[in-house]
């Protein structure tokens, strides 16, 4: 049985905000003034972040994860494909996971098919192709009406995968993206095409659409209580409808980790970066203070039925991850795991076992965290957490998924 796969996710946040940012600005997204970008300090910032991802590859992570954001301080990758291209030349082993290109923001999905195929060829077939529909901030960033976005999204995915698998030229009828000549060069190196991952926030619609096409599901949540296990079970049940058998590798989650020698030391070293991340980077996204753009009547992408379900359980003004007050509360959210190698290992194993997920996508760099601290945490994780996680998760999967043993071992050796 294959052990859990461990990925290093970098968001590439902007680390040079002024001290009074939280007092003065309602959001770190969309309207956060770009006059705050400090040209002098920011020199070499991308280099530092890319170097951290290269280090992850050297440390033996299963892959590096990138994603797309616009006009914000949370993630400085309007084009994750540019970073992916850089990684293709500087890393050797790990998968390059772009999670993902936000398709409704594209004028033409053909461009995504082309760029992903380039990355796959440039990296020797290491691309995992993620496609995202975008959330509230993206709707405002690029003026995408939310009700249309999902329709555009699935048509675009189907068109992209078709360009990779069907010989061109062919005509695509639309309706969203009618194209006379579809004939993408190059074609991806992997056959039939790079693995496709689709992030979702538990909506039935996204699970259905991913499951019936044979794609993997990534839960786009930062907190992992019972809902994470329920989401995995819901995706497993949805896959079963389409005669697919769930394996832990069909499902991924995002976690954040900081490891140091002791629990106390880990808190001391990570606190500046973590609280910068929670207070500033999540403001406008997963923080109630300020103006949250993530979901609501202004960005009504959810179907009315989904919105009713949300209304029934959500208290307006309720505290979210970014409103977390102290370490104890942070610990309860099972989102950012801070501690000694033993602490982190035990907590991650509990998540793996409970959620039955085989893909842990782990954020190591937070907000304005210093380079040497992020690297130290990654190194301690790789040396003192990952081996035990891999060994014990393989046992868990062998026990919980006996029927999968044969198929999973047929995956190419890493």
């Amino acid at each position, binding site marked *: 049985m294959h052990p859990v796969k461990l990925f290093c996710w970098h968001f590439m946040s902007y680390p040079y905000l002024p001290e009074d940012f939280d007092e003065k600005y309602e959001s770190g997204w969309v309207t956060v003034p770009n006059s705050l970008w400090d040209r002098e300090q920011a020199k070499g910032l991308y280099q530092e972040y890319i170097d951290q991802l290269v280090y992850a590859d050297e440390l033996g992570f299963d892959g590096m994860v990138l994603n797309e954001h616009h006009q914000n301080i949370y993630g400085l990758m309007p084009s994750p494909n540019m970073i992916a291209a850089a990684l293709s030349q500087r890393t050797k082993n790990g998968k390059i996971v772009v999670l993902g290109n936000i398709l409704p923001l594209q004028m033409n999905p053909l461009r995504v098919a082309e760029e992903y195929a380039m990355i796959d060829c440039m990296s020797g077939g290491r691309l995992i192709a993620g496609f995202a529909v975008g959330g509230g901030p993206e*709707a405002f960033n690029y*003026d995408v009406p939310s009700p249309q976005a999902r329709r555009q999204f699935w048509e675009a995915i189907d068109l992209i995968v078709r360009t990779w698998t069907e010989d061109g030229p062919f005509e695509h009828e639309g309706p969203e993206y009618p194209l006379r000549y579809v004939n993408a060069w190059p074609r991806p190196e992997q056959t039939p095409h790079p693995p496709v991952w689709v992030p979702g926030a538990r909506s039935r619609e996204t699970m259905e659409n991913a499951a019936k096409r044979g794609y993997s599901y990534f839960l786009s949540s930062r907190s992992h209580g019972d809902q994470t296990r329920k989401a995995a079970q819901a995706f497993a049940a949805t896959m079963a409808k389409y005669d697919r058998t769930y394996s832990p590798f069909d499902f991924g989650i995002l976690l954040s980790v900081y490891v140091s020698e002791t629990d106390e030391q880990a808190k001391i070293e990570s606190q500046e970066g973590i609280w910068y991340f929670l207070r500033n980077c999540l403001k406008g996204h997963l923080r109630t203070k300020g*103006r949250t753009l993530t979901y609501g*009547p*202004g960005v009504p992408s959810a179907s009315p039925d989904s919105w009713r379900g949300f209304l029934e359980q959500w208290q307006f003004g309720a505290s979210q991850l970014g409103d977390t007050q102290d370490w104890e509360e942070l610990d309860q959210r099972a989102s950012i795991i801070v501690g000694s190698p033993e602490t982190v290992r035990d907590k991650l194993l509990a998540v793996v076992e409970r959620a039955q997920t085989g893909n842990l996508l782990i954020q190591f760099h937070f907000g304005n965290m210093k380079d040497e601290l992020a690297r130290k945490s990654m190194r301690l994780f790789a040396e003192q957490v990952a081996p035990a996680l891999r060994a014990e998760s393989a046992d868990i999967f062998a026990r919980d998924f006996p029927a999968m043993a044969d198929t999973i071992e047929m995956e190419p050796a890493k």
Partner: protein
Amino acid sequence: MTTKSISVAGNSVWVEELGDGPPVLYLHGILDLHGIEAEPMAFHRHLAESCRVIAPAHPGCAETGEDETITTIDDVVFHYLRVMDALDLDTCVLAGSNIGGWIAAEIAVRHPERIEKLALIGPTGLFVSGHPIADIFWYAQPDDGVRYDGLRNLLFAGPRTEIGLSMIPDAKDEIDREMLKYKAFRFASLIGFRPPYLYNPKLHIRLDRYTGPAAILWGEHDSLVPRAHADTYSDRFPNSRLEVLPNCGNSLIVESPERTAELISSFIAN
């Protein structure tokens, strides 16, 4: 007062009817019957004292089904031509508030022969250089998860008027009202979120196509649709008059329901 569901091109359309007299097809806005209230409000009841008010809910609003083929204002115009046919409204008075006023204007410039009189209440719909319609979607996202001063400021005469606070409280409203509001914003988003924002760049050059009587009603303190839009509507409709109501923002029908209904009633009668 009757409510019914009629079938239009295979989709159900929810229609509220009240009063007797000349038929008035009323197209609702966001803060309106079908937009946030399930039952006719004071404005609709006053208007129904002198006419037959026929108020369909827009696609996806209230109990009207969502229609995937509707993505532009043009689609909405065709939808309402079918609604008029289904209701046997060969000709009628056409009235609308907020986004409903925009839709009414779009119908009138295309089919002036079907419109006896046109009444627009704080309508969006126009492009006026230097005077953009404010971003209602941005302010539909509350401050600190729960405060709607920004949204109220766009829809009422100020951020914390009494009527504003009662219509849009700083709290989670009853779920049925929240749902109506969500659906109204979802419909508005469909036709007005991407550029052009809640307007049609060509509408202002087409206004001369409607030569019948037009009443333009505007709130003195409208922060959503600037006064320059009122002037453009009234200047370009050849046979129009503008009424500006004091102490009101964009939501005349809730901020001054009796006066607004009276002005429309007398416009229809004379």
